[in-house]
């Protein structure tokens, strides 16, 4: 478990370091995700060495964003002023993207 945490935080640190020193249109944690995938793919690290920590983190992924959701309370004014365009945009755009994605996959997937 400890070793896998070192790997996860190590790749996070690597991603953050690279984006800190070089101007990039991407955040450190997303770069860390891409780098750990590549490291696994090219067998630089082993799946069993990272799996214990990553499984636990994935399991509680949604718990971790609760504080951001609660932070919405400091922006009640935005919701109160713009709830109509927000709702229209979310519903219409999600329905549209759902259909586009599904129809292409249905036509060309096996």
């Amino acid at each position, binding site marked *: 478990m400890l070793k896998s945490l070192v790997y996860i935080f190590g790749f996070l640190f690597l991603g953050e370091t690279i984006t800190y020193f070089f101007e990039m249109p991407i*955040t450190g944690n997303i770069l860390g995700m891409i780098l750990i995938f590549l490291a696994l793919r090219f067998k630089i690290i082993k799946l069993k060495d990272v799996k214990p920590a990553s499984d636990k983190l994935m399991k509680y992924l949604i718990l*971790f964003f609760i504080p951001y959701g609660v932070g919405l309370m400091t922006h009640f004014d935005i919701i109160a002023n713009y709830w109509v365009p927000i709702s229209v945009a979310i519903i219409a755009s999600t329905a549209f993207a759902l259909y586009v994605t599904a129809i292409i996959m249905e036509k060309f*997937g096996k």
Partner: protein
Amino acid sequence: MQEFFQLPVFGVLISISAYMGAEKLQKKFNYPFFNPVLIAILFIIGFLLVFNIDFETYNRGGKYISFFLGPSIVALGVFFYEKYEEVKQNLKVFLITVFIGGISGVLSVVLILYLLQAPDFLIKSLAAKSVTTPIAIEISRLIEGVPEVTAGVVLAAGVFGNAFGPFLLKKLGIKSKIAIGTALGTTSHGIGTARAFEEGKLPGVYSGLAMCVNGIITALITPYLLELFL
């Protein structure tokens, strides 16, 4: 009393226990709107309002919970590696589909808000609404949206996909379960993926992978797409 709530342990404890309680409720009632995150957030907001506690006070502990979003994004890379074998036969089609689906999600929400003459900050806050919250929050921060608003709309897009996605797609004539899974993951991230797993294990895997891929795609293209409009 306010000083007591300033202890970080308050924010940590209420976050974890509200989530645990909400999960128990969901197991009991199993209804789409009983999304555990949604319930937990509403409960905590209610609690803070009733006891007149500031968000900043709560977040002294809350920030220890949200800190783990960073390593969780890295863990998504591990999940992707573990599962991508299962979609290998469809890999090319899958990647292209998610790419187009991801762009449609960003473009359509930006276009609709633009036509409704919504202010710039709102467009920036909603652009990444289809991807998993930790990534959406990072994108929102990068393009100068309001991350808290982004967290809220991501949740809404997830709950919408979870509650109505499969019903809508079946009504529109989609038969392939894999297509439904891919669509749910592309547009409704983890909350949609939970629904995809109810359709079967394979649709669930496609959905989880679509969530990872679209997270990367949306992170890469959103800043450029926004430049076209703003």
